[in-house]
């Protein structure tokens, strides 16, 4: 069998060798704490600040507005909890969309537990938030609002510019989770008035375990980690210097190569969509145009997702499943249910996400394997009468 083909780039991307190379001196060489005054500390600090500038530059921010975190989840938690908790005792309401990544969704649930009222904004069948509905949900006591820039499951890109402007006009802090969008969608915070924005290293061909939160100058935020006051007090704890340097390199490469990557990914994505739609009873979820360049999300009628993922795995193809099965009950994705997918169809969804290193040959052999796997699983499915 030929080499396995990786088509689950929304879960994590491979580490770019150029990123790895930039990290190595900080892993294997002499090491200092970036807070130390001596030369060792100085060298670490230099790497840190260079990376900060590179991350800022990917999204049009200034370096002082970047806070490094342990990943996308921590960045989202810091934004949602931090914005809400610093808003004063009269503001006890938050607005959050129904298509957030679990990092934002669960942080908002935490707010509910703390006594905040949360308005969950629904979406249409493509997963799009309606700006008018969003605007109507904002109140004088709204402490913060959050809508994902691009959804991690179906890849729908939200009208964040419009939403952020609505919030800016009413002085309500607005958070955007851009973990999937960064490097695939042009992001410029000097044009889009978000208050905070979350990024992650390992979705950008950078290392796992590193992320960043953009915090607009003047926005007040309560930390969720306390200690030595690093990262301007917003994220205490000695920084993960190697990870941060890797994220910096990944951000620089993403900015330089974004156009080429997007063109390449889109070509592969469209090839997959066209190929898969030839299989009967396969439906694409999410918006056709307003969609990430690397995302194909499908409902495969009569086939349960996990069995399809494992079947393809055994043939050497790695894709993502859209639901989790355990203890006798499947858990349908809240995002798909919010989009109006019936529960039983929500168990039959898979996510295929290409990356910059995938090839046309890989895609073609994948299409063949996919069609074989679906045919065989349908053969034994009591729910497919094709």
């Amino acid at each position, binding site marked *: 069998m030929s080499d396995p083909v990786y088509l689950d780039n929304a879960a994590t991307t491979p580490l770019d060798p150029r990123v790895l190379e930039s990290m190595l001196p900080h892993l294997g060489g002499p090491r200092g704490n970036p807070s130390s005054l001596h030369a060792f500390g100085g060298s670490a600090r230099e790497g840190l600040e260079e990376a900060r500038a590179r991350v800022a530059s990917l999204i049009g921010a200034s370096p002082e507005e970047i806070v490094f975190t342990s990943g996308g989840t921590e960045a989202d938690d810091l934004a949602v909890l931090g914005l809400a908790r610093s808003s004063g005792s009269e503001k006890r309401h938050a607005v959050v969309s129904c298509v957030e990544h679990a990092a934002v969704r669960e942080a908002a649930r935490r707010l509910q537990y703390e006594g905040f009222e949360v308005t969950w904004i629904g979406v249409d069948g493509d997963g799009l938030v309606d700006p008018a509905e969003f605007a109507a949900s904002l109140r004088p006591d709204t402490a913060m609002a959050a809508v994902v820039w691009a959804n991690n499951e179906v890849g729908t890109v939200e009208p964040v510019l419009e939403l952020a402007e609505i919030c800016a006009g009413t002085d309500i802090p607005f958070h955007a989770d851009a973990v999937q969008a960064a490097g695939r969608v042009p992001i410029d915070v000097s044009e889009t008035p978000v208050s905070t924005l979350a990024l992650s290293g390992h979705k950008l061909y950078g290392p796992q375990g590193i992320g960043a939160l953009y915090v607009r100058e003047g926005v007040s935020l309560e930390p969720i980690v306390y200690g030595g006051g690093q990262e301007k007090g917003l994220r205490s704890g000695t920084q993960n210097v190697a990870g941060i340097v890797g994220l910096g390199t990944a951000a620089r490469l993403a900015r330089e190569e974004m156009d080429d990557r997007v063109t390449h990914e889109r070509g592969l994505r469209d090839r997959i969509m066209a190929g898969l739609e030839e299989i009967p009873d396969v439906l694409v979820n999410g918006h056709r145009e307003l969609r990430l360049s690397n995302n194909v999300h499908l409902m495969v009628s009569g086939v349960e997702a996990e*069995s399809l993922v494992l079947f393809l795995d055994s043939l050497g193809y790695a894709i993502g499943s859209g639901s989790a*099965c*355990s*203890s006798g009950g499947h858990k349908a994705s809240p995002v798909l249910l919010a989009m109006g997918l019936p529960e039983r169809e929500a168990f039959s969804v898979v996510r295929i996400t290409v990356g910059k290193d995938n090839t046309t040959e890989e895609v073609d052999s994948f299409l063949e394997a996919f069609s074989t796997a679906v045919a065989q699983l349908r053969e*034994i499915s*009591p*729910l497919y009468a094709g």
Partner: protein
Amino acid sequence: MAGLFVSDRYRPQVVDHLVRPRNAGKIADPSGRGESGDAACGDVACFTVGISDDILEQVRYKVYGCAACIAAGSALAELVEGKHLLDAASVSKADLEDALGGPLPAGKEHALTLVVDALHKAFEDHWNRKAGEMLSETKRGQGAGGRSVVAAMSGGVDSAVTALLLREAGYDVATVTFRLHDGERGSRSCCSPDTVLFARDTAHRMGLPHFTLNLKGLFDRRVMQDFVGSYSEGRTPNPCVACNAHVKFHASSFLADELGFHHIATGHYARIEEGPTLARPVDESKDQTYVLWPVPRDLLSRTVFPLGDYRKTEVRAIAEERGLAVAYTPESQDICFIPDGDYRRFIRKKVEAKPGDVVDREGRVLGRHAGVVDFTVGQRRKIGVSAPTPLYVSEVRPRSGQVVVGRRQDLEVREVRVRDLNWFLDPEEAASVQVRYNGSPVPCTVEEADDGWWVAFLDEPVIGVAPGQSAVFYSLDGERVVGGGVVARRGS
């Protein structure tokens, strides 16, 4: 290098069954078909079986579900095809796990339950097809000489120990659980109700084959409708008696005949003596002879009640000692199809209750009531009429909607008319009669009436003799059941 990417969450055997499923598909003209699970839960398994001379000649399966479910279906089909029905019905979840190379990943164990349940439902369908309009009430007795027995298993400790004792006594044992109604515990789950799954696990842990029979139609007709009808006709039914008279023993006997087995067994506390006749068990506090009187003689002659020789405490001790999980199950409730015990609410859901008058024995109206279903002869509470001396219900007249009340002494009865008799011994031997489940036998003499009914003349007056309840006659030494019947309405 694909191996690196094969998920380490599953063993290679599971992936192999997923990618190369055995026995996938369905039989066009099967002997039985069973389905378990629900599309809304995300898992569905469907088995079709071809059975000939009790050999499982063909097994085909289809599964929609996670890899564990598909692999479990494939492995189970492979395991049981070609086997004798009794061996196939003994295949446990543990056997299936072995066939899949060991325990499934955490959280995937339900796959085993799902496919085993679907296969067993196919067996159940096979029996129901053979029985036709179930489990027609034909009684076919076979010789009682052999050492094979069908033991009814409810999921409780008594029936589990019954099966265990029989196996240890050297019997070939097949177990059976009846589906009687839809109110069973755990009915919301995707598979069979918890009671069925629990009974099956218990049987399989003892290494015994387990079957299910669907008796819902028969049980509804013979027990539940009778229960509702009796109350609205002013009688006080005993559903356990109705079940023993028409359902449980007949169905066990049917399965024994089909399997070529000699005996049937239940976990009742009673003994069977020559005759055959019923006799009191060792544990008097658990005595169930009062509800067993209607078992037809030819069925009783092939029945075994192993628990008649044990005390309940010994039964629990045996279960504990042998590691049966059922050792700690609670005592079952009085009426299995009314789990909350509120039988009046149950009846009101089935029939409309009509208000009527509460009258005294002279016909004077004392008050109103909300429906005759709320009253039983002998009842003292919730009559809704205040009086200087306590009032008791002495009669319920469903046609006029009247509930007659009187003083305690007005309820005293010295003569009880009994219909639908089932005699085990010569009626002459009847020396006492018990007319309530928790009552004691009262000395009496009996006499046959012109219409085939019998009259019991009581040596001392009894109060609260309710039409519809059982009248069970005991021998002079009080040990044996001479026969039994149903208390008839006075004056009818």
